[in-house]
């Protein structure tokens, strides 16, 4: 009888190879799509993928593309994005998306192959210290040395990535562990470190204190961020209700756009370095600030010693390390945005009434009247602001998702495209990764095959991950790459003009590809437009095409992005577009050696 035992156990349904466990765990966590690129150290896993249909694999052209695609997928669905890459260069190519996801709190589960355990530390072919390299750019990571630990680690990985403040995790699996047979178990509570227990519910005393401050406010503002998006659609609904119930003005960070609708009456537009005048002035002059799921980052605050000097600040965040990191707050509330907003609303409705803040709105409307996003119309060349406006007007009635690259076009997209719903806007905020938008659009399109997915790009950014056009064609993903082509790295040039004596060091692209031919070479469709009068027709054509499109939108080359808080200045010292003549600009940047 004892002889028969090993034979029996091999037939048990939970006995399987490490590679099979990985695919099984993905299925158990409801993963429908993964993004990846095969290689020597993950071949056993790819062999398992080949023999099943539950999990669909999207082959990219570069591992960085897989990472950003998974980010786009995650951000547009609220589900974790999953990536599978090989050891060595496969893992190092994933470092940028991991760092990007960590900065923007995007749940990613990245499985990397590793050389067999006996070769670790041997400088084997395609070996690198993956857990060492990815330690500072993940929320947590694991090297699995025993196949019997694999199931537990995979389940914990999904839990850590998606709970608390979401983030990227890496599970590094040596090839011999993929081949070895062990016991699999489905997800269970005990898979998680006892030391990991994020707090979800806010402290009741702090919430009461916050409500009494809100109820007594004369010049309040709500400043929301990406945390509201991460907390799910329910959080956005509660935020809208809070705005409705209190009548407070609301602004948002780049990451938080869409939580409150851009068409909403209380919307002030985005705040920060390229935010609107009214949003920044209201932040500076408010008496009570409610920060929901944002982190007072340096693009938001301007100089911190002059940041909103006379306000009492309430800060809701799930991560205690975000509290008092840059700005001291009066009432910190640790918890999930949806949970805390729900509690605040409940107490507010029961115990407070809508504060009378008409004089404050009067003041805000005066700032609004400065029209800080104004630009001079031009009939001869397409202004980038105009291009985004037309893109918005032609797509707002459709089921549209927008991704961006990084630079001027990103700021213009944030300023001129109106987002009505959360999860519709995917951009690299914290890390500022050029090349994010094209693969992110790919990931969004995988999750929403019938929606219109547009990457608003720049001519420089878009070339960093252009190879994924090939993946888009292969998988029949009709992404639209709307390139604001000004032949410059526009934001680099803007800073050189403002701060480095107009010495345009290496910010001009001497030899751009012909984007139309490039699209055709990939098997997609290329469109070009250079006249304001032709723009609407060209955009309509782009929308109609059921193929990946590169849209080469030739825009005014030297247009700069305003309004702007110059470096070292406070929120109430903005430079507005129509006032940004040479003299005003020189004065605003006077501290620099720039325009001397």
């Amino acid at each position: 009888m004892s002889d028969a035992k090993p034979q029996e156990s091999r037939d048990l349904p939970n006995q399987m190879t490490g590679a099979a466990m990985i695919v099984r765990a993905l299925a158990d966590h409801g993963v429908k799509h993964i993004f990846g690129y095969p290689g020597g150290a993950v071949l056993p896993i790819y062999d398992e993928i080949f023999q099943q249909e539950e999990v669909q694999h999207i082959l990219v052209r570069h591992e960085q593309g897989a990472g950003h695609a998974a980010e786009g997928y995650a951000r547009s669905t609220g589900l974790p994005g999953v990536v599978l890459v090989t050891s060595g260069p496969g893992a190092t190519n994933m470092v940028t998306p991991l760092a990007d996801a960590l900065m923007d709190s995007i749940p990613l589960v990245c499985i990397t192959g590793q050389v067999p355990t006996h070769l670790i530390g041997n400088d084997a072919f395609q070996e690198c210290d993956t857990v060492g390299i990815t330690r500072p750019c993940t929320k947590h990571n694991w090297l699995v040395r025993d196949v019997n630990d694999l199931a537990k680690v995979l389940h914990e990985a999904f839990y850590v990535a998606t709970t608390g403040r979401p983030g990227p995790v890496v599970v590094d699996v040596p090839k011999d562990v993929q081949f070895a047979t062990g016991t699999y178990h489905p997800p269970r509570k005990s898979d998680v470190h006892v030391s990991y227990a994020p707090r979800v519910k806010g402290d009741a005393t702090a919430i009461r204190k916050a409500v009494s401050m809100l109820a007594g406010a004369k010049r309040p503002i709500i400043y929301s961020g990406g945390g509201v998006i991460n907390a799910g659609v329910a959080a956005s609904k509660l935020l809208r209700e809070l705005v409705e119930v209190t009548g407070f003005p609301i602004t948002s960070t780049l990451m938080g756009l869409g939580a409150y609708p851009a068409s909403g009456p209380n919307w002030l537009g985005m705040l920060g370095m390229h935010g609107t005048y009214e949003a920044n002035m209201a932040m500076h002059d408010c008496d009570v600030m409610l920060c929901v799921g944002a982190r007072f980052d340096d693009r938001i605050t301007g100089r911190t010693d002059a940041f909103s000097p006379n306000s009492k600040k309430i800060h809701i965040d799930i991560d205690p390390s975000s509290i008092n990191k840059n700005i001291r707050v009066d009432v910190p509330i640790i918890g999930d945005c949806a949970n805390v907003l729900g509690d605040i609303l409940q107490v507010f409705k029961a115990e407070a009434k809508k504060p009378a803040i008409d004089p404050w709105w009067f003041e805000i409307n005066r700032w609004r009247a400065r029209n800080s996003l104004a630009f001079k119309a031009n009939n001869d060349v397409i202004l980038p602001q105009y291009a985004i406006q037309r893109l918005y007007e032609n797509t707002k009635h459709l089921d549209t998702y927008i991704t961006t690259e990084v630079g001027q076009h990103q700021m213009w997209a944030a300023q001129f495209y109106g987002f009505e719903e959360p999860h519709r806007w995917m951009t690299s905020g914290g890390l500022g990764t050029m090349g994010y938008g094209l693969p992110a659009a790919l990931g969004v399109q995988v999750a929403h095959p019938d929606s219109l997915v547009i990457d608003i790009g720049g001519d420089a950014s878009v070339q960093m991950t252009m190879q994924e056009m090939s993946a888009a064609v292969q998988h029949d993903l009709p992404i639209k790459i709307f390139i604001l082509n000004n032949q410059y790295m526009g934001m680099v040039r803007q800073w050189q003009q403002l701060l480095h004596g107009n010495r345009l060091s290496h910010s001009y692209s001497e030899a751009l590809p012909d984007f139309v031919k490039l699209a055709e070479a990939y098997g997609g469709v290329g469109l070009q437009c250079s006249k304001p009068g032709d723009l609407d027709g060209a955009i309509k054509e782009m929308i109609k095409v059921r193929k990946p499109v590169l849209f080469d939108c030739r825009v005014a080359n030297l247009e700069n992005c305003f309004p702007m808080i110059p470096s070292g200045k406070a929120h109430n010292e903005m430079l507005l577009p129509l006032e940004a003549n040479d003299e005003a600009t020189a004065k605003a940047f006077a501290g620099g050696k720039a325009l001397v």
Partner: protein
Amino acid sequence: MEQPASAYFIEERHDPNETHTLSVLVANEPGVLARVIGLFSGRGYNIESLTVSETESDKHVSRITIVTTGTPMVITQIKHQLDRMIPVHRVVDMTVAGGSIERELAMVKLRASN
């Protein structure tokens, strides 16, 4: 303050530094010390001294004791940053909590002549 030409706001901070002793209870697993040290070097925190050893073998728990300096805001950050690491059970600021004993051990080698 005169600002140099920079995309970042450059501010000098003049808060006085404080010295704190932190006791960090961690899961005793591979790489946990590297995570803690990496946090300090990566975020530019100081380590004046550091000791690590397993304290409860059956529970797989180690204690890392760190003496660090920083402004009050930085010390708070260090504690929060440590606390949010997955294998960290608890962070105790001995300087604030009190009730701890500080001892230094010196070994002195004497050259004795006749």
